[in-house]
């Protein structure tokens, strides 16, 4: 699957179908700090991502105070 990451914006390829929680663990990303989006829709932690999916891992942390 193609995975879009942000800050900085880049795209990586991850092989195999897997659950969202597995993808985040594999990329060492804290689940509290991101949303996972496929086709404009959120995918929950136990949701499955397919081999051919386009997925965005969107950070939710803002730096302003």
């Amino acid at each position, binding site marked *: 699957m193609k995975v879009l990451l*942000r*800050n900085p*914006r880049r795209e990586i390829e991850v092989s195999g179908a897997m659950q969202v929680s597995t993808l985040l663990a594999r990329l060492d990303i*804290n*689940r*509290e*700090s*991101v*949303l996972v*989006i496929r086709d*404009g*829709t*959120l*995918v*929950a*932690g*136990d*949701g499955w991502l397919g081999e051919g999916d386009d997925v965005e891992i*969107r*950070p*939710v*942390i*803002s*730096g*302003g*105070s």
Partner: protein
Amino acid sequence: MRCRVCRQPAVIDIRRHNANFCTEHFLKLCRDQVAKAIGEFDMIDPSDRVLVAVSGGKDSLALWDLLLDLGYQVDGLYLGLGIGDYSHASRDHARAFAQQRQAKLVEVDLPTDYGYDIPTGAKAARRVPCSACGLSKRHLFDRAALEGGYDVVATGHNLDDEAAVLFGNVLRWHTEYLGRQLPVLPAANGFPRKVKPLVRLGEREMAAYCVMRGIDYIVEECPMAVGNKHLGYKDALNAIEVTSPGSKHDFYFGFLSRAAERFRSQATAEQAELHPCPSCGAPTTADTCAFCRLVVRAGGQAPVPVQLSTGPR
């Protein structure tokens, strides 16, 4: 995962509530939490005119959307900070939302109206960019609210923001800041009332709210905020939250219920020293207010490129 309310497939889990939600019931949860915060802390009266400080980011646009849906009279205020392409994109998101919701957006532009941008102002005043930005925002939001006849300024500070600020203030025992770190600051001494209706919602929830509502916000981080202390505090708190869900909520709301009052006198003492700035009339404890000093120092300075102002802070 199933929605806690309707048992349909869930799209988001909120671990501090130990619950999952479908789109419909998550959006209802957000509205309910904002209504609860407004009621619990007596933030906004239905007759009030509200000015929402809008950055084009997820929190401020979600807040504007939620307050409109809850029936409040709300206009937006966008402040152009002159941070290169980032500011242009932010402004476009704010304008697009206002047009989509047919809401009024007031715009103030630092370079056009005050002769400086944040990179240049920060260097001239020898402040870190986030400090110059925060100072400019607070001053101009207050001024716009008072001049526009608004009863209250609403900002998009969420639970994560407040917990991170609290964390930083406790780490360094900034007791005067702790004394005024409240979800409502009443109108007093030339300041308008300020409220934070998102304090019961985390920033992951605000981003999810925007995705579900189709709100197109600016996802990229401000280039000048990269590496700032506030982000470091958030990382630290999120590392705790993973193993102990609800920690951020308990930290912040525990402070409000059990500790904030102990620091009130520090903030009150500072308030007693306020007097009008001779230049602009805004309340200050100094001879001239910090904003007017910033404008004077930044005026006529050579513009500083955005990328030269970033770095550790």
